[in-house]
């Protein structure tokens, strides 16, 4: 270290230290963020819930005593017991296993949908808003029109067109959320565009791509992270609602919304098959919301909305 500061040292060495320092820096950032999240009871609760569900998604097969689709013969419609913590459903599937294994599904689906929407929305928002002009105007008019359609309605229409499947749900999430994400990004870009350092870069003849990537994008990330968290929680809800309406993920997937919807006619026979997945949805939504709130505090300090 000391050698490095005097006389500049050899370049590769200094680059290497740079790298080495950068890696833990990321970790410490996350560690720091996590600690801040745990500084408050509500966001601590939210983060814990999210982490629990995340663990379920990752280690589900290790936790779940049965597979999600196994119809245990002779064990249909059993009330919760030691064998079947959450009971079994009308076909004799273990509800606990299905709830646990369903976590991966919903997290992956809502997560991927959010991710795609965020990536696409960010790209559109960044370039369109930075360039400005007519294309920007037209793009966002179009997005406004999409936003004028209530999300669930739009989702139903789109799913009607592309047919129900896991991929369709992804498509729907993207279509429904890209305009929203793009709008958020755009608003940040429009304010960042005016900043001195962006103008300085322009004065130095930087290319648009480089300015967008190096100067504008980093300012978008906090708002984007927060928005992504928010979108994620809505995505969970939307996926569940679509599952319930039977136009989303297909049976026999342990999709929570689908489970609730399938258990509904059986509510007087197997209430547990309905209430446990419903509770899982609620807890995850609560968790993501509270965690997103906390994330907002960490990422956008001093801003409440």
């Amino acid at each position: 270290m000391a050698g490095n500061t005097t006389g500049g040292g050899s370049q590769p060495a200094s680059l290497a230290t740079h790298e080495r320092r950068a890696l833990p820096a990321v970790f410490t950032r996350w560690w720091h963020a996590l600690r801040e999240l745990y500084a408050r009871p509500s966001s601590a609760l939210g983060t814990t819930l999210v982490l629990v569900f995340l663990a379920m998604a990752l280690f589900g097969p290790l936790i779940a005593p049965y597979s999600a689709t196994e119809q245990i013969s002779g064990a249909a419609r059993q009330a919760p017991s030691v064998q079947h913590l959450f009971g079994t459903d009308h076909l004799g599937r273990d509800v606990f296993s299905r709830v646990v294994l369903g976590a991966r599904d919903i997290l992956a689906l809502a997560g991927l949908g959010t991710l795609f929407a965020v990536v696409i929305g960010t790209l559109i928002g960044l370039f369109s808003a930075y360039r400005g002009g007519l294309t920007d105007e037209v793009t966002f008019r179009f997005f406004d029109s999409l936003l004028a359609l209530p999300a669930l309605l739009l989702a139903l229409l789109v799913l009607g067109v592309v047919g129900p499947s896991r991929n369709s749900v992804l498509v729907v999430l993207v279509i429904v959320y890209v305009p929203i994400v793009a709008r958020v990004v755009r608003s940040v870009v429009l304010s960042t565009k005016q900043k001195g350092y962006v103008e300085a870069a322009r004065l130095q003849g930087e290319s648009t791509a480089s300015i967008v990537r190096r100067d504008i994008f980093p300012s978008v990330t906090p708002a984007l992270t927060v928005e992504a968290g928010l979108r994620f929680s809505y995505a969970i809800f939307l996926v569940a609602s679509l599952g319930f309406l039977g136009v989303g993920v297909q049976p026999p997937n342990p999709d929570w919304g689908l489970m609730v919807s399938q258990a509904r006619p059986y509510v007087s026979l197997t209430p547990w098959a309905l209430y446990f997945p419903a509770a899982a949805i609620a807890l995850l939504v609560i968790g993501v919301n509270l965690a997103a709130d906390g994330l907002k505090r960490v990422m956008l300090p001093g801003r409440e909305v």
Partner: protein
Amino acid sequence: MSDEPHRALEVEGLTVTYRRGQGSLDAVRNVSLRIAEGQAYGLVGESGSGKSTLALAIMQYLPENGLISGGAIRLAGQELATLPGEQMRQVWREQIKLVPQDPGSSLNPSLRIGDQLDEALSDGGETRGGVRERSLEQLRQVHIADPERVAASYPHQLSGGMQQRVLIAMALAGQPSLLILDEPTTNLDVTTEAAILDLVCELVQSHQTAMLYVSHNLAVVAAVCDRIAVLYAGELVEDLTPEQLRSQPLHPYTVGLLDSLPRVGQRAGVDPLLPIAGNMPRLDEVPAGCVFAPRCPIALQLCHELRPDLEATQQGSLVRCHRWREIQAGAVDLRAARPANVTAPDESLSGKIALETKDLVKHFPVRRSLREALRRTPPRSVHAVDDVSLQVGQRRTLGLVGESGSGKTTTARCIVGLVERTGGEVSLFDIALAPGLDGRDAAVLHRLQMVFQNPEEALNPHRTVGDVLQRSLERMRGLGKTEARQQAGRLLEAVRLPPSYLDHTPGQLSGGEKQRVAIARAFASNPDVLILDESVSALDVSVQASILNLLTDLQSEQGSAYLFISHDLAAVSYLADDIAVMYLGQVVEIGPTEQVLQPPFHPYTEALLSAVPRIDAAAGIERILLSGDLPSAVDPPGGCRFHTRCPRLLGEICRTQAPPWQQAAPGHRYRCHIAPNELAAMQSPAFRDHITTVSP
């Protein structure tokens, strides 16, 4: 007790602590103050020294994480900390009032001014009409010409100056026994600031109210107050009268603040500013000895080890310094101890014109409403810049001054191409420049750079200083990565920052440091012309001074020409060889600095000049107050654009005819109907005397 004047406020050993994360910091430590009835007390110090904290502690209104952890605050003998809520409200209602720093956010945006005032005045027993009558009276008292209109307005419809007046009117409502003003003029134009200062002085005299006036500008405080307390890093370091401040300040920090303040006519090459080196310590790791020791030019070993006490001098001032006696005796020269490596500008190279604008025009179209469009009302536009012709000689500095909204920034942005001009020409060493950035090639771009006003936005917060500089060097000088990195170190050195800063992110830098990096970045391409738009205005006086000096140094090292933009005539005159004064989109006066600062001046220049706050209570300079606000640039007044506010209005001719250019001296012109000799006769000769006294 009996022979002392009655105390309005006593602060005894006050310590204020902020909780921050796990730890805590003492933002104010063991501060004692006594303000007598009718006394105006000034509180100065750099940003972060704890001024607002002290003010809010006195108000018993600290942020949630703040806590008075020691000492006592007594208002007219009554301890405030122990007052129950209801009584404290009574005290707020009747006895102490605060005029906050930011007038914009201190008024409720969705309530009419009148209603907000009524609220402060009403005590419940009166009719609405009666209260409103008193509100209007209150507005008149702060020289608001049209109180009915203002009372019916919403805050956003008023200018900053007017908002500040409203807040002052509000504060004066209950005839308070103590008035605290926290930087009431910091964000205002010089002309507005001057008017507010006059108002405050007048009110204090007529009301016999005790006042605590907080500012970071010694000149302002000296102009208003009977006594001045200097705060540094949460500690009171000196407590003295304005006379003592002028004649013999004893604390090195006070002296540093004084020497950082440019006076009108002071020139960089001749009489450089002597800024305080270094930064204020972080309050959570205050040094063990004298808090100022790390930055003190005359600090001894003792100073680093032992905290000095606040001692009283024979003259009745208080000072916290181990060496005050030596300073008083003249045994140490505070100024000599500091290096002032300012080199005189090299006049020989001047001659060639580096940057020239001819009849530069920029009009921003105003959007027409649907109705207007249908009625075919001709489109209107903001006349932001009208026929501005400027020349900046090689290696020379042209200063551009004017009130907010006069078009300075727009001029600069047109020149660099961030805004496309509506008309006129811009050329760089005889190369005609395209209006927009896209039309200019890289070589030209690199020869013309700009440093922006707001240091907070000058640097990408997500990149290290090294990244920023390296990128510019790679881009503009075509250097390789390794070479760029080395050069980046050199650039930092050039702006007097240690090379370790290469790894810092902007978040770790102070405002002044950020601005230095921004300057370094602009210098990465060795520009021929550098435009500085209010680049020092947002900074503390001491930081401002050091950047001004840096700019002078860099100019002599690199030979760039500067277009230096500021609303502060003192700063401009310090740096500029020539000055152009702008009013409402037009240049109204232009010429060499010495000439422009001497009568005859354009009446507007005269007003600007008189508004500059001065330490030395301006021997005989009468303040020229401009009435009203800057008119709208959408429909600029006909004839002379200044006629609506001109103190030397001739009459009809000013309203109808555009004034001609008058030649005051060779190279010195102004736009006015009044001939040079007549004008000179009207103007205070004190100006000339004053200016000549400072420039040898």
